[in-house]
């Protein structure tokens, strides 16, 4: 691309930055969770506000895992401490409990200039990294965690993309391949497109409750080796959008596979507190790795991710999170430290929030009872809504819905009449997108079509959050049922 110069003072037409000249990878990036269907939802909301008449009075945004947006209340203790940190004069106010004040003082003392407005060190405030490592040790039954291996981040997404940036390299057939589950959370596909990595899909088994089969991993990697260099295996546990909670055996199999195939493991565990189904339990990858003995625990390279956006906190807007890196080569770690320094530091309010999540009120502290009550209520409500949703969806003819074992979503399979699929093609839309758009226009419910997450050819799904309050959720489920029956009839 050569420079074009002004000729006789007349500028050549056309912009410098156009679709043709911009970074081609950027064009491939899509993020369905906030994609075209959400943009249409925003537009509809605007029209409603301006008084337009619609078959619904509000748009229900069941597309994104944003608990507070759907009415979940923040945990009192967390917000009290944050307010005290933001405006320390409140430390004189006797309406705030003593344990909240103590936490605030401790956090402020660790901040530069005693203010959460100051920059922090790039990997995060030192004492918070220490608190995180202690939390991990406690969670994992005493397996040691080194604060030097903890990097605080701007939500888990920031840390995930940072690790990918580090690992993705090579050219042509040597280009890094990254294994990701189908269906997956589209941050991964977007990041891989953006960074120009090769995406290697491994399919979760819908008929077996979305479980992971090592044979499928083997199939995927063998095929991939023909056109790229597989180096990374990403796993989301509990899963998004599928909600499956991996069994311990399965996690061990994945770790063995990673070791055999020389893969860097990325374990996205942001939903670790969101486990509902009987018989299901969260096992951290790190814990299982170490319990498998030194042959694995001293060799398999692992990065585990967590955040303040999900679980019982739901504080997406604060962008708090961390990653723990295990068995990373020290020279690579130096590069990682260098890389995070370029973006200065993660938001300090988010770091403060994370500190409270790993350092919650203890039984002997004044805020304990309220804290436990609120936390239990949130998680119990989610569990009940998970059950309700699975039950209801399975009564709809044409719907197959796996149990929502964990996380915050349901991902039912829907059967679409052949005529509907044809209609969608005529309109230039993917069938499940057409379905979801119709649902949005007719019922004001915003979901994300399964095509945004990946699914087996010929199958259609959508992802809906289970976050709206129970009463509203019931109404939503009813509306979807009615819509589906109407839709199926229309195209019979």
């Amino acid at each position: 691309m050569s420079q074009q110069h002004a000729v006789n003072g007349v500028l050549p037409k056309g912009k410098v930055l156009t679709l043709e000249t911009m970074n081609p990878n950027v064009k491939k990036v899509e993020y369905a969770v906030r994609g075209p269907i959400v943009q249409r939802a925003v537009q509809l909301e605007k029209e409603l506000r301006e008084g337009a008449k619609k078959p619904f009075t509000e748009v229900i945004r069941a597309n994104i895992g944003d608990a507070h947006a759907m009415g979940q209340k923040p945990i009192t203790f967390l917000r009290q401490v944050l307010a005290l940190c933001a405006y320390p004069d409140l430390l004189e106010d006797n309406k705030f409990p003593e344990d909240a004040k103590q936490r605030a003082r401790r956090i402020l003392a660790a901040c530069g200039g005693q203010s959460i407005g100051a920059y922090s060190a790039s990997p995060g405030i030192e004492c918070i990294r220490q608190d995180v490592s202690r939390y991990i040790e406690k969670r994992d039954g005493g397996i040691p965690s080194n604060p030097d291996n903890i990097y605080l981040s701007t939500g888990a997404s920031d840390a995930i993309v940072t690790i990918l940036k580090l690992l993705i390299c090579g050219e042509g057939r040597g280009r890094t391949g990254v294994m990701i589950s189908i269906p997956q959370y589209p941050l991964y596909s977007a990041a891989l497109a953006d960074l120009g990595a090769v995406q290697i899909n491994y399919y979760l088994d819908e008929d077996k409750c979305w479980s992971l089969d090592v044979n499928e991993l083997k199939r995927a990697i063998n095929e991939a080796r023909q056109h790229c260099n597989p180096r990374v295996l990403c796993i989301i546990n509990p899963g998004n959008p599928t909600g499956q909670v991996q069994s311990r055996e399965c996690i061990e199999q994945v770790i063995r596979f990673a070791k055999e195939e020389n893969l860097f493991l990325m374990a996205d565990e942001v939903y670790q507190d969101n486990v509902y189904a009987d018989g299901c339990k969260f096992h951290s990858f790190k814990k299982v790795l170490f319990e498998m003995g030194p042959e694995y625990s001293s060799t398999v390279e692992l990065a585990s991710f967590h955040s303040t956006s999900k679980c019982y906190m739901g504080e997406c807007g604060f962008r708090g999170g961390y990653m723990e890196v295990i068995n990373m080569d020290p020279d690579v770690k130096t590069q990682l430290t260098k890389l995070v320094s370029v973006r200065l530091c993660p938001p300090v309010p988010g770091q403060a929030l994370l500190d409270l999540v790993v350092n919650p009120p203890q039984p002997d502290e004044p805020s304990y009872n309220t804290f436990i009550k609120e936390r239990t209520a949130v998680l119990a409500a989610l569990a009940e809504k998970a059950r309700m949703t699975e039950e209801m969806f399975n009564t709809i003819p044409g719907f197959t819905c796996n149990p929502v074992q964990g996380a915050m979503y349901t991902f039912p399979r829907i059967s679409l009449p052949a005529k509907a699929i044809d209609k969608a093609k005529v309109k230039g839309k993917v069938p499940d997108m057409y379905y979801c758009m119709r649902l949005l226009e007719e019922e004001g419910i915003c979901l994300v079509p399964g095509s945004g997450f990946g699914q087996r050819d010929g199958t259609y799904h959508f992802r809906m959050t289970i976050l709206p309050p129970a009463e509203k959720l019931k109404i939503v489920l009813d509306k979807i049922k009615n819509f589906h029956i109407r839709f199926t009839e229309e195209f019979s």
Partner: protein
Amino acid sequence: MPPTSNTGERSIFNRYQLRRRMSVVLREISPNIRSIRPPRYTALSVRAAQIREELRQVRFIYSSLDFLHHLIKTNRSSTCVFVQGVKKPYTELIDVTWGDPQGAGLKPLTFARQVLAACLYPKLLNNERLPADVRQRAEGLLHECHGGSVGSYTDLPGIPQVARQISEFISRRDGGVPSDPDHILISPGSQWALQVHEKYTAMYKFKQLYCGGGGVRSGVLTPQPSYSLSVMSVVGLGGVPVPYQLWEEQGWEVQVEELNRALEAAEGECDPVALYVINPGNPSGHVQRRKSIQDVIKFASEKRLFLLADEVYQDCIYKENIEFLSYKRVLAEMGPPFCDTVELASFHSASKGLLGEYVCGFRGGYVELVNMDPAVMKHVFTIFSKDNAPTPGQIALSVMASPPQPGDPSYPLYRTEKQQMQTLIKDNVRKVHEVLNSLPGVSSHPVEGGAFAFPRIDLPPKAIQKAKDLGMEPDIFYCLRLLEDAGLFFTPGCEYGQKDGTYHVRYAKKRFHFMNDFS
């Protein structure tokens, strides 16, 4: 296949396998990341951290003895402390490397923090201790947050009210030139926005090496001296920084002839696509005049470059009779054809304002896009949609864009705090200039704006030689001695780029008790 003849050999082989496994990732790290040069003054930072820790321990020991404690507090410059057996004429390390005012002890704006607290803990909306306008502002912001909580994700480009406030702020600042809230994207700090922007302007055209072609990488013209992280991020994205020298003799001005030279020098090395300017300059402190900005715009237009204007220090102007002129304003006022064609992205943040919203830790920034191709803008929004700007940062931006007005209950306190801050910093600026220029071998241009001073230090040839013998850059050596002997932590000029043979240090002007520091 591992040898099976002999158990000893097999175990050695297994150990080798183990080691090979561990290092397999190292060999294959993204070369872009490897190319990011870490700060050259790492040794300096490490030593500073060590000294800081040693002093902290010493203070802890002495603080149990009241007398000594009192002595240290009141007369620091004449108190000697023994650190690791070496006598140190200071008890506290003064770190002036960062543009982090709150880290340096400056108090934040009360209004901003009150609004934030009320947003975080809405029970405070009923607390009469908070002034009415604080509660009103918080209520308004919460109303626009999904579910009435700052814990929710925000839509693109951010909380609608904040985007509107920012566009109004821009318009006011620019003498009425209109600003469209739909062209404003809120980001987690300006560096993040700049990175994203560099990413999509970096047209990395890749050709397979064994097909005979080389990769043609995008170039970004960057000033020298320049804010190091921006350069690092260009490299990290696979771009090529193309340095253009700022003209020290004229107070670090931008010269078009130099831009031309840089562009020509880049021929064959890369494909220059963007021109990055920092105004007010970091670390130079230079504030561009209208003519200079116009010249740069004309240059960008002629040479078909995308303009990236880093204006985070726009509130920090000290020289009398200068005002900050934004690139957008000058562009608009140049009229057609420039105002409709030159593509510009202007960056600002809540981290650097003189107005006291020094909330670097909150990570709030924005970018305003001018004349960008609408099809490209769509993709920009998609990229931004993956990364939400933190809500506390957005609140900080709201206060920055729309501070208390005369008549508001919070206005008197706000005005006092703002004036105090401004007076302090203007004083510091003046003193820095006086003191630096009174030292032999140090010359400093008057700092017109920004947060730093960048004086030139003439190092005696013996010092330069000593540094070379020790295998370090002369200005790093100087800074190391400054650190050890005086407890002052400055950043060496080599970090920002300087002409060969010249040496500088960068000093952040926001230290509270400046005169004490320099006695």
